[in-house]
Structures are given as structure tokens and as C-alpha cells.
């Protein structure tokens, strides 16, 4: 019952949209494809759907070669980020559409449609026209249509990105509930997102993709604690993890002339040499005993302040848990939570994380 993808490559122009991707998906699990814009997420989903044909590679589902099956015969469902529904049909007809297409028994159709409408909380909306609905409601209709199909593979392409914040949070929780039900245990769920926080909240397996390549694949916890490379660490954190060049000499970790500190416990055994040093924005704190940094930008977001700082060539972003105003070129004192420092090889691979051993 699994979806096996082998060496999928798609290169329509001079750049790889998909570069030798090999993945396995099992039913009953939620997979989040996490990557920046234009990293290949949508291309990947569309290839699984059959809307795009890869240049090479294979897709096998339940033992069948998917690539020889046209879109309309693969039992899949897809929800887009733009609210896509059939404008000329009302809610009920929209959800019925795929079932009617399959020529299912009308009574059975009615049952499935009612259940789907209940699941997404749109009871009473059956005869409304799509244009009369709000964004969130339209997206629920799209979702209901996908659920009613009982498709074996459900593809979601950033479905919440065009909704406002509160709605997003609410719907995301509903998603998790919906897809932990027993019917969901029959399907494979693939959710594409650019937002690391969303990926963590969904708490499924995370597949990190960049420039068409899979960089890492594992549980949310695993990917968070042990990113396999500096690039993964950047993609899976928001704000991106601060990565700076540094070195270990004589038991000290040195970023530049000003910033030196003795090696933390988990890194004591590391040999001297050049490394890339990583630390999350949330692991930097204002501290009177800290190092001097100059403020480049100060962003207030909700109840936090993001400070973009530099000290010579060392650049970082710090998340301050309160709202404070700073001016450009203000001087602040910042300290690092040393127990949370990551060490990467100069080439980018993870050398040591705070969570290993």
C-alpha cells in the first residue's frame, strides 16, 4: 500500500525542478514537504498527481506503475493554495462532482457528501454558491471534496497560506484531527509548506527539499533536533538558524576577535579546526555580560522583536520575547545559550548537535 518514488528527475529548462528524488510513503501518516518557494514542492506534488511527466524515474503505488496511468485514473485528491472550486456549481454539487464522475450509486453519494460536509463543519451550506463563501469556507469545500473521494493519496499544496492567521491556526488543528481518524489510516497524506513552524505543528514526518533535491527526511523531532546540514537548519527554522564561520582553538570556540567562548560540554571533544557554527535565533538573549552587537534592523512581530545584528562579519538574528524598540546602529549586548550550539563541517554537514548522545 505504499507509494514508492525512485530517482524522479524533472528538468524542463536549464534548472532541475526535481533532482533524483527517492522517497517512500506509507499510509496512515502525514508527510510535510518543507522547502522554500520554488524549491520543487509544487512540482513534486503535480508529478505525483500526474499533471506533470518526469524526465526519468518511476512512481509505484500499490504495485502499479503510476506513470502509465493518466491523471484521471489515479485515485488521488489535491487541495491548492488558491481556493479552487467549480464556480458554476454550488457546495453540494462541488463535493459530489468526483463521485458522480465515478458513477457511484446516488444514495451512496449523498451519504459520503453529507459526511464530508459534517467533517469540515459546513452543514447548512449545501446549496450556497461558491462565490458567496468566504476564503476559509471555500477551502473547506475543496477539502470536503477531497475527503468525499476517499482518495488513497491526498496532496495538499500550502492549503492554508492564503487564509488569515487565526483561521490558519484553527484549520490546522482541524486537519490534524481529521487525519488521525481511522479512514485516514488508509491514505497517504502529503502536505507542502514553506513554513517551518507549520511543519513542526503538523508533527508528521518532515521531508526537507531544496532546489529539487531531498536534503533530509525524518520525524519532526528528529529534523528539528538534528538537521543533517546547515542548509537544512536554515530551512527548518524561522527565523533561519544563524550560521557563521568559526573555529575551535585551544578549547575555545571563536567566531571573531570579539566573540570567543570556551567550548560547551557537548562539544568539548571536538578537534580544533574550521567549522560552521549554528545557533537558533531563540537561543540568543539580551545579557549585560554579553557581546556587543550593532542593530541593523529591528522587526516587531506580534509579541516578539526580531533583531538583525552584526559584529564585524558575524551576522545573526535574535528573537527577543518582548516588544522593544531599537534604532538602527543601536548597540546591544547579546549572549549565546552555549548548550544549544550546533557545529557543522565547513562543507555544511552536521558535525555535532546539542541533542545527540
Amino acid at each position, binding site marked *: 500500500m505504499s507509494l514508492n518514488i525512485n530517482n524522479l528527475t524533472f528538468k524542463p529548462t536549464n534548472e532541475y525542478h526535481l533532482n533524483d528524488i527517492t522517497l517512500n510513503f506509507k499510509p496512515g501518516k502525514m508527510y510535510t514537504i518543507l522547502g522554500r518557494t520554488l524549491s520543487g514542492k509544487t512540482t513534486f506534488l503535480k508529478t505525483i498527481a500526474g*499533471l*506533470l*511527466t518526469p524526465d526519468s524515474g518511476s512512481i509505484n503505488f500499490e504495485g502499479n506503475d503510476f506513470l502509465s496511468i*493518466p491523471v484521471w485514473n489515479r485515485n488521488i485528491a489535491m487541495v491548492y493554495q488558491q481556493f479552487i472550486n467549480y464556480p458554476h456549481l454550488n457546495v453540494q454539487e462541488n463535493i459530489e462532482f468526483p463521485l458522480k464522475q465515478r458513477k457511484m450509486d446516488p444514495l451512496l453519494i449523498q451519504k459520503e457528501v453529507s459526511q464530508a460536509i459534517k467533517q469540515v463543519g459546513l452543514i447548512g451550506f449545501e446549496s450556497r454558491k461558491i462565490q458567496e463563501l468566504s476564503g476559509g469556507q471555500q477551502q473547506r469545500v475543496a477539502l470536503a471534496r477531497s475527503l468525499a473521494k476517499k482518495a488513497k493519496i491526498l496532496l495538499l499544496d500550502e492549503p492554508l497560506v492564503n487564509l488569515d492567521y487565526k483561521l490558519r491556526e484553527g484549520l490546522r488543528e482541524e486537519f490534524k484531527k481529521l487525519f488521525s481518524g481511522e479512514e485516514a489510516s488508509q491514505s497517504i497524506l502529503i502536505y507542502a509548506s514553506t513554513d517551518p513552524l507549520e511543519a513542526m505543528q503538523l508533527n508528521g514526518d518532515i521531508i526537507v527539499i531544496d532546489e529539487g533535491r531531498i536534503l533530509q527526511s525524518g520525524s519532526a523531532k528528529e529534523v528539528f533536533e538534528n538537521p543533517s546540514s546547515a542548509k537544512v537548519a536554515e530551512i527548518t527554522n524561522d527565523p533561519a538558524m544563524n550560521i557563521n564561520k568559526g573555529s575551535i582553538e585551544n578549547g575555545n570556540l571563536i567566531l571573531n576577535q570579539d566573540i570567543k567562548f570556551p567550548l560547551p560540554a557537548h562539544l568539548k571533544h571536538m578537534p580544533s579546526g574550521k567549522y560552521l557554527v549554528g545557533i537558533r535565533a531563540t537561543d540568543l538573549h539580551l545579557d549585560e555580560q554579553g557581546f556587543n552587537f550593532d542593530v541593523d534592523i529591528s522587526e516587531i512581530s506580534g509579541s516578539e522583536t526580531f533583531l538583525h545584528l552584526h559584529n564585524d562579519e558575524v551576522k545573526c538574528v535574535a528573537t527577543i520575547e518582548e516588544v522593544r524598540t531599537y534604532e538602527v546602529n543601536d548597540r546591544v549586548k547579546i549572549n549565546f545559550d552555549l548548550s544549544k550550539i550546533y557545529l557543522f563541517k565547513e562543507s555544511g554537514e552536521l558535525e555535532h548537535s546539542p541533542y545527540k548522545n
Partner: protein
Amino acid sequence: MNFKHKYAFLLPGLIVLIGILIFPIIFTVRLSLSGWNSYNPELDFIGIKNYIRLFTEDPRFWQSFFRLSFLAITTVFLQYVIGFALAHVVWKDIKFKRFFRVLFLIPMMTTPVIMTVIWRTFFHESLGPLNDFLSIFGVQPPWLSSPGLAKVSIIVVEVWQWTSFMFLLLLAGLLSLPKEPFLAAAIDGASPFKKFIYVTFPLMAPISIGAIIIRLIEASKIMDTVFVLTSGGPGTATETSSFYIFIKGLREFQMGYAATASFTYLIVMIISLTIIAKVLTKVLMKE
């Protein structure tokens, strides 16, 4: 998305079009290489003699091109300016908006030939109302028998007929413009004049280009008006390329030569229109 089904969509129309066109096009080219005329109604082969004659011995053909360009460009320009002005006025705040809009649309819905027939009576030098009115001022211009005025008559009729089309395209364009830039201009306190120059006109640039090109394509085919109003006259004053080809082919029955002129005309038109399209796009899109 690339399914084999796409051919089923495209091919019926394409095949029908090519099917209907292929004979005429090939025949025209073949005809242009023959000397078919009323003394010699046969499809012989004389090579490119016709083309040589066209390019070296026939200034009348090329003059007709100049006349055509003059008429087409003048009429399209006038239609654009007037059409834009009218569209702009009935766009928003004016009484009887719908009445004026319908009224201004009517000319393009009329059959040009038929209206030209009426215009012919209108421009009639002794019995027509125009000269009757002008005789109050002591002038009775010879609208249809003077070379210069004949051109003016054609321009008047064409402008009457087709400004309406420009009006339609431009009004549709204006109605589709987003509101935000205008709100911004209002907040900035822009005068109506400034608003037009800096907001309306630039936003309408792509639509203006499209409308002008479409009208140029249609205007270059000017035939009905010339045929009825002046028959290309007086002399050759209003003889356009189409009319010249018509005379050569269907009046003098020099079919071969007419085919040559037709084919040459086609190539020249396609090249000029493509160039004009590219130039206009560059000029108007820069602002």
C-alpha cells in the same frame, strides 16, 4: 499538462481554416506567376515577369500604398483620439450614461456599405444637405469631385463608422482598470488632467496598443467606402491598394497581375504591421 487530447481540440478548427484557405493561397501565388488576362485566360507560366513589372513599371501600385497609409493612419489616429475622449467621458460621471453609450456604439453595428450609400447622398454636391448648409456661408465644396476633398470625405465616413469600435474597445478597457491607482491619485490630490496623464493613460497602454493594431489591420482593408463613395476617384485620388487590385483583377481582368499585386500586398502588410506593433509596444510601454 501535455495530453494527446490536445490535438483533438486544435485540429478541427485549424484543418478547416487551412483547408478553406489553402486553395486560394496557393492559387494566388500560382496565378501571380502566370499572365492570365482577358486576352489570354490561361494559366501559363511566365515566371516572375509580373513581379518585375510590379516593382519597376508600376508606380501606381506603390502610390496606392502611400494613399492607403495616409488614409489608414489618419483615420485610426482620429478614431483613437476621439474614441478615447468619448470613452473617458461616458466612463463615469455623466447624465444619460447608458443612452450615450448605446448611441455611440451604433455606427459600428451598421453595414459600412449601406451607410456609405447614405453618405453619398449626404455629400452630394448640389442636392445634399451638407452643401445646403454650407451654402449659408457661401461655399459649396466639391466633396466628391476634388482630389483633396474626396480624401476628406472618405476620412469623415471612416471616422464616423469606426470610431465606435475604438470606443468599444477602449471603454471596455477603462471599465476593467483596477480602482487602487485612482484612489491613490485622489488621496494625493491629483487634478483630473494629471490623473489622466499619469494614471489613466499609462494603465491603458497595452489596451491602446491592441486597439490601434486591430483597427490598423481592419483599416488597411478599406474597400467598401471607397467603392461606393468615390470609386477610387476622382482620378486616383482615393485609390487604395485594395481598390487598385480590384480594378486590375475584376475590372480589367488582368488576373495574373492582380494576383501578383495581392501577394506582394500581403507580404508588405504583414511586415509593416509586425514592425508597427513592435514599435508601438516599445513606445507606449516605456511610459
